[in-house]
């Protein structure tokens, strides 16, 4: 097996004028040095990939589009030798105009990433593209409901604000890793992917192989959080393996991980028209999602962004538009809270400014506007099973919300509470298939292509199947992913697995039980309709003494095993010009409430308490569900207070874990609590990987606003921004001749 070390671009946007590989190739132990031009010259593989647009080169060809883009690969049996040789590769660049900010890149006169529009991946069918590469746009999505101009005309007040979210890293403990073996007429890949079947399709297209000759094996991942969705390192390893005729391993360093897949930076201008009684009557928003240099999944992300900007409110007149804009920064990909964090940061922050201006309590203004059963969402869907009001009231009670509660002050320290509500869809349409295999000893194999990445999908699926079959969960074994063996699943993203794979699994279990019933009827010489299956026992209805366990049925029938299969397909989709259709098979409903303390001398914010509420439908694995919410809390506090990929002319400044901060346990609130609201009659399981996340940052920001009157419009809520806000506020108040005691404390320090 050969180890790969990549030589990465040091230019943000440039033509490659020369790649000198001689010294590296001559380095003792170096087996091969490969460039993008080398791959293109072979003619036996495609050299561009991408889940929607075939725009990303396996290794850069002629042009680099971001600092950190792979330009050449060095292979050696010893990874240290590969490192040494890689340092000897020299690349010459002729710089091109570069652009880093999405709004600047949108229609830029100077910088253009793609002179020619890239081709589409032919098998990606669910996104209608409105790409416009002349304007650096890889997709635009628009949602229109009602008559937004009429709405604004009727409004008593119109609020117009700009909010920013920065790029961030998912920071999985394990960085991307892949081993590819393209020897012979097959390709086998061991990959840390969240999307095994999509990756298989992408690799098959790249190497010109039928799907069944590409095998993707996925062991347990050390975290994913979206960053490992869609092919990224796999095409490199696969192409190199074909070149050298040996297995190739590529395992990214932490520094490489930071430039491989990021959260989208996003800027949104959001205008909201309200009546004096607090009703929102119109919303218009334009969002620029910074896609980075390659589209990856940004074309789909803008759909989530466009309807996401509506928020969980019944607004009669809406026009939202989200652009995915290409810039000379690392590719942005999927990221926990897919496009919604950035939306919620804007609309929930603005809503508290509206509430203050109108003199309405922040909880009350949400009660007035939250969607109720029967309301029409901006997508035209009539919504049901809405529990926003229950979630909000419960969260307000848990945090001890009191509209008249004064801000708590203790010297420089000021405490207050904040709240926020968020709606989020799950990927629709989507498909999962599953196989359940009952053995003669009563044990059960579950074959699934859901990826275990620490979220606990394997124990959760085991619990679900055990409950369905009425057996002990310890009897259920859940597979890891191997596309040669485990059936199709679309992807492990979008908090979809417990709904989609869980649903497919339930159908597979039902299918197996149906076959068990047929077999048991023969064994017991009764009509299948006379049998009932209770607690893993098959018996003639009403005759408890005459029963067979599931394993006994398999054994005595001599069928070897009983196989049940299940598929769950959801349908829907939205028109990209109007946003009308079916946006999501169900809607994630989430509420958060935070109590924070700000040091007004430093601007430093601590989260003292946090409580969230999520509509879970039905909780399958209570411990795992709680852990998912706690994971969201860590993510959310990091996003809110410290996480930011800082770029200087395209060069990442916070590219190590000494520079890029993730929260530690000391940064977590001392007290937290999550409500997982259930509705057993609804009988639907909602995924919990993401829903608790998006309300966190706005809840913290809203608490800061209540404590100090300082509105932070750009994440993260750094201490410095808060202190500047306090100073500006004090100055404007002094100018207005009304010195506020609270804010002057900060200045005296």
């Amino acid at each position: 097996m050969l180890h790969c070390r990549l030589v990465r671009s040091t230019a943000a946007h440039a033509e490659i004028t020369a790649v000198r590989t001689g010294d590296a190739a001559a380095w003792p132990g170096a087996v091969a040095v490969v460039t993008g031009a080398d791959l293109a010259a072979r003619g036996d593989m495609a050299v561009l990939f991408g889940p929607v647009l075939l725009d990303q080169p396996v290794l850069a060809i002629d042009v680099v589009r971001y600092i950190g883009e792979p330009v050449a690969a060095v292979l050696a049996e010893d990874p240290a030798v590969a490192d040494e040789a890689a340092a000897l590769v020299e690349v010459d660049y002729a710089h091109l105009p570069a652009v880093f900010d999405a709004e600047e890149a949108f229609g830029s006169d100077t910088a253009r990433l793609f002179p020619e529009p890239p081709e589409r991946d032919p098998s990606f069918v669910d996104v209608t593209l409105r790409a416009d590469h002349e304007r650096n746009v890889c997709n635009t999505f628009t949602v229109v409901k009602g008559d937004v101009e009429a709405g604004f005309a009727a409004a008593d007040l119109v609020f117009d604000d700009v909010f920013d979210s920065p790029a961030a890293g998912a920071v999985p403990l394990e960085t991307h890793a892949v081993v590819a073996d393209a020897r012979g007429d097959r390709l086998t890949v061991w990959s840390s992917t969240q999307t095994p079947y999509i990756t298989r399709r992408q690799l098959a297209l790249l190497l010109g192989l039928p799907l069944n000759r590409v095998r993707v094996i996925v062991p347990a991942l050390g975290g994913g959080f979206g960053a490992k969705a869609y092919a990224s390192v796999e095409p490199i390893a696969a192409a190199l393996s074909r070149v050298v005729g040996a297995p190739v391993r590529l395992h990214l360093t932490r520094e490489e991980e930071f430039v491989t897949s990021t959260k989208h930076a996003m800027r949104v201008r959001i205008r909201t028209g309200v009546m004096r009684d607090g009703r929102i009557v119109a919303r218009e928003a334009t969002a620029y999602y910074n896609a980075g240099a390659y589209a990856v999944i940004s074309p789909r992300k803008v759909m989530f962004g466009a309807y996401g900007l509506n928020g969980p409110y019944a607004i009669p007149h809406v026009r939202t538009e989200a652009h995915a804009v290409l810039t000379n920064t690392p590719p942005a990909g999927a990221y926990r809270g897919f496009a919604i964090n950035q939306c919620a940061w804007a609309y929930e922050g603005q809503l508290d400014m509206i509430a203050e201006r109108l003199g309405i309590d922040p909880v009350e203004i949400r009660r007035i506007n939250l969607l109720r059963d029967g309301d029409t969402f901006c997508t035209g869907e009539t919504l049901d099973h809405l529990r926003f009001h229950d979630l909000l009231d419960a969260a307000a009670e848990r945090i001890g919300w009191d509209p008249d509660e004064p801000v708590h002050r203790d010297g420089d320290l000021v405490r207050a509470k904040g709240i926020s509500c968020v709606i989020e869809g799950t990927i629709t349409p989507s498909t999962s298939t599953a196989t359940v295999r009952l053995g003669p000893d009563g044990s059960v194999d579950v074959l699934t292509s859901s990826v275990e990445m620490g979220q606990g999908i394997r124990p959760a699926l085991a619990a679900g199947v055990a409950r369905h079959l009425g057996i002990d969960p310890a009897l259920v074994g859940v597979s890891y992913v191997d596309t040669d063996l485990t059936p199709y699943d679309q992807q492990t993203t979008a908090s979809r697995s417990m709904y989609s794979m869980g649903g497919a699994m339930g159908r597979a279990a039902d299918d197996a039980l149906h076959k068990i019933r047929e077999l048991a009827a023969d064994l017991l010489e009764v009509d299948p309709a006379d049998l009932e299956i209770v607690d893993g026992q098959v018996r003639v209805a009403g005759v408890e003494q005459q029963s067979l366990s599931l394993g006994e049925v398999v054994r005595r029938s001599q069928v070897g095993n009983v196989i049940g299969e299940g598929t769950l397909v959801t349908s829907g989709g939205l028109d990209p010009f109007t946003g009308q259709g079916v946006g999501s098979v169900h809607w994630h409903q989430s509420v958060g409430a935070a109590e924070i303390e700000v040091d007004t001398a430093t601007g430093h914010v601590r989260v003292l308490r946090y409580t969230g509420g999520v509509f879970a439908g039905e909780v399958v694995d209570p411990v795992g569900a709680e852990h998912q919410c706690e994971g969201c809390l860590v993510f959310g506090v990091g996003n809110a207070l410290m996480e930011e990929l800082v770029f200087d002319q395209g060069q990442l400044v916070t590219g190590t874990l000494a520079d890029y901060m993730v929260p530690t346990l000391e940064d977590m609130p001392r007290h937290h609590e999550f409500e997982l609201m259930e509705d057993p009659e609804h009988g639907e399981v909602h995924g919990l990987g993401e829903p608790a996340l998006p309300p966190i940052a706005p809840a913290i920001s809203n608490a800061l606003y209540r404590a100090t009157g300082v509105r932070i419009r750009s994440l993260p809520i750094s201490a410095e921004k808060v202190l500047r806000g306090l100073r500006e506020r004090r100055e404007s108040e002094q100018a207005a001749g009304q010195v506020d005691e609270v804010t002057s404390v900060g200045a005296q320090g």
Partner: protein
Amino acid sequence: MSTPAFFFPRSVAEAVDVMDSYDGAAKLVAGGTALTLMVQQRLVSPQALVSLRDVPGLGEVLVDEDSGLLRIGALVTHAAAARHPLVRRHAPLLADSLAVVGNAQVRSAATVGGVLAEADYASDPPATLRALDAEVAAHGLAGERTIGVGELLLGFYQTALAPAEVVTEVRVPVLPAGTGSAYLKYTSRSHEDRPCVGVAAIVGLADDGSCADLRVAVGAACDAPLRLGDVEQQIRGRRLDGATLSEFADAYADRIDPVSDVRGSAWYRREMVRVWVRRAIEQALLRSGAHEHSKERAQ
């Protein structure tokens, strides 16, 4: 880039010789926490790494009764020094500073000699050692010399050490009984971040409650720990009331030449110096002899 040669000398003299033979192209390895990162990120590419692991006598902690110095071997780790009874008794300020560096993994490897020799501005112990008027013993080609921490730390990653000079010991004057001290580390982002600002303050009060001794060093906000001797001098004999502390903190804030980095802009650093100098002195006052009762309550 090639793999550096690795040496394990068995004496300080041997280490000095090896360092000398590489003429500035070798790096000493003590705890390795900083060096490993710098090598990994290719900020330095030493031809040789010279480990002090096998050099005897660099891991001891003792109090020299004659000189009144707490002597800490250069290879003593932050964690070991922070929990050492002699350090805790005779230099609690240093123990406190070492205990807040990075995280447990870093503290278990990083050494008190290494943190000074590296001279990273974004570090906690140097400011404290500067406030304590600590010295280092260093062995070089010309034999041993002692260097005050103030003279040792010249700027960003710059020291007065010669390329073939090895820090062997850190010597800390023991504070008189009744002296109050505090190190306050302020992190602007994650709790385990490097300091945005760190302030070490030492306060001794006269019987009449006036200030007999005030020493303040500000770390992590500029190229090397900042002490303003003239400002310290001016405050002696005065009562440390709120106005005096503000005046003192303002002097540090006004005269520092702060850095700008991801932990805070120069503007913010200056404001944080103003806040944390004052808070560190207030904390030190609470721990001084004049406030024994408060101290016990605080603990």
